[in-house]
């Protein structure tokens, strides 16, 4: 196998693979910043993917599909907000319940969409599409907002210490709900980008752990929106490489190669955990993990 064919266009394919994940990562980054860890993003992505795909197929308008995906996932994230904020239920368990709900609801709603074809976005230079630009443009926007504005400061304060934030005149539960909703919107955009743009198809459970990987990669990115870009690229690169090797007739079978993104993410996660000893995260979030 020639190395040149393996590497040709690899950066572009890595970017394409990374774009949906980057959107989800940014959302989960904001959610974790306000002190919540939402495993439900996997289900939210699925709901976003199915709503986005369905609306695009009906209307022929991919941007309308993206909006529908974001709205549907935000709606599902409201369930997580109700459970963890209003009912004070456990975060991990609530996330898994939301995941299950999203898995079932998307499979039910999507049964008529399997095999349906859509137009999707126009493809630009190097096969790059608008969802990639959207994802990449959101990185500095989110980062500058989080680090440079008063509301961004309020969000970080709630994630560090809800008590101190309350003393400073912030209403923590409102900020937490907003953080969960932001995560919902962005995970829906990510799911819709996956089905409308990346695969251009809908299949049951098609996110295949991307949402959960995002939960882990936020920690790899040290809850820093700027670092979500390299974290997403790491996953994208591993995925693009596994697809490449497969197409290039690699001796290593495809299913084995597909483990690469997970193993790479886990390896980086393990190394960062070992080096930083779990520090650096929002204090209210650390309390969830602390034992």
């Amino acid at each position, binding site marked *: 196998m020639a190395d040149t064919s393996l590497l040709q266009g690899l950066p572009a394919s890595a970017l394409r693979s990374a774009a949906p994940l980057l959107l989800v990562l940014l959302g989960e980054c904001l959610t974790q910043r306000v002190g919540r860890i939402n495993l439900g993003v996997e289900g939210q992505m699925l709901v976003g993917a199915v709503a986005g795909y369905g609306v695009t197929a009906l209307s022929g308008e991919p941007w309308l599909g993206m909006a529908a995906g974001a709205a549907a996932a935000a709606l599902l994230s409201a369930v997580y907000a109700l459970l963890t904020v209003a009912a004070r239920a456990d975060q991990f368990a609530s996330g*898994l319940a939301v995941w299950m709900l999203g898995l079932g609801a998307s499979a039910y709603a999507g049964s008529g969409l399997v095999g349906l074809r859509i137009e999707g976005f126009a493809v630009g230079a190097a096969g790059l599409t608008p969802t990639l630009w959207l994802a990449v443009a959101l990185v500095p926007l989110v980062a500058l907002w989080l680090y440079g504005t008063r509301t961004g400061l309020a969000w970080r304060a709630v994630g560090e210490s809800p008590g101190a934030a309350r003393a400073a005149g912030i209403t923590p539960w409102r900020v937490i709900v907003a953080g969960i909703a932001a995560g919902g919107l962005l995970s829906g955009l990510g799911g819709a980008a996956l089905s409308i743009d990346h695969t251009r198809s809908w299949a049951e459970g098609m996110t295949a752990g991307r949402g959960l990987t995002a*939960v882990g990669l936020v920690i790899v990115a040290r809850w820093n929106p700027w670092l979500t870009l390299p974290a997403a690229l790491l996953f994208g690169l591993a995925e693009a490489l596994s697809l490449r090797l497969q197409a290039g007739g690699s001796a290593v079978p495809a299913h084995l190669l597909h483990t690469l993104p997970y193993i790479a993410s886990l390896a980086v996660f393990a190394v960062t955990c*070992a080096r930083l000893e779990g520090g650096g995260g929002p204090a209210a979030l650390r309390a969830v993990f602390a034992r």
Partner: protein
Amino acid sequence: MNGTQLQRAGLAIAAFAALAGGFFGLIGRGPLEMLQAIVMAAAGSRYAVGESLLRATPILLCALATLVPARLGLVSVGAEGQLYFGALVGTGALLLAPAPSLQLPVVLLGGLVGGAVWALLPALLRVVADVNETISTLMLNYVASLLVTWLVYGPWKSPQSQGWPASIEFPDSARLPLLGDSRVHAGLLVALVMGIVLHLLFTRSRWGLVLDVLRSNPRLAPLAGLSIARQVLLTMAIGGALAGLAGIAETASVQGRLQAAFANGAGLSGFLVAWLAGSRVLPAMALALLVGGLLAAGDGLQMMTSVPSSAVLVVQGLMFVALLGAGGWRSEVARG
């Protein structure tokens, strides 16, 4: 059950009935008629009860797999991966083909060891490098599932399966005995016995006390001469072995061969069951039966009313939401 618990159970049931009823109304089905159909499909006949118990078995084992590390305060979401890897190693043991009389013990042992090994990976990462076990077990789930997919599409694909990706069929000598004339296998009994043994260990033994102490105050460990690391490895390995048993029992005795993506979210349901039960064994058993019944009803419903089984996944999700929302199912044991 005291007054508050009763109140909360009532609240959960009312919330669930409202949510599920609303969902059935939304998809254009009579809510009462559907709830009735679910109860009938889960417990309306001997066959239905058998199917419910069959579906409850891996969920109960996965709940126990979550619950044992949770007694130490660990949040392991890895039962699904351990289930896959147990099935993988157990099937591998069969392929090495010992004499028929040895097949069942070797296959079962493979399941137990496989599950334990897959749980020891995140446990070691936790002990050696302080890697959070929740995240690592989540990612390892996908790796284990993909490894099984690779094997059944590739090296282990049976030539007799006519293109369908699956391993060779397990011979009768490698299957767990069935209970009566049902499809329920002895794995259910093993799960129940293990549950009772664990319950007694947690509530009556010195080990149970050690786990309670370490969970509520890890800093006491060195003073009391206790090793957290050893307990992390031990609880994760025991949990993993139980999930591995679920995997190999499902593979050998229910499906009869190793197939891709056969777990159907048993690990996920098991985690929620363990969590809602507040990491206590007896409530986990009751909840596992309830979820098993709901899943079995899903299969029955699809045949009887042409409602797709994904609708039952939604109902299951709604049930967990109602239980979590009503609260009070977590005891003080849940987490320190």
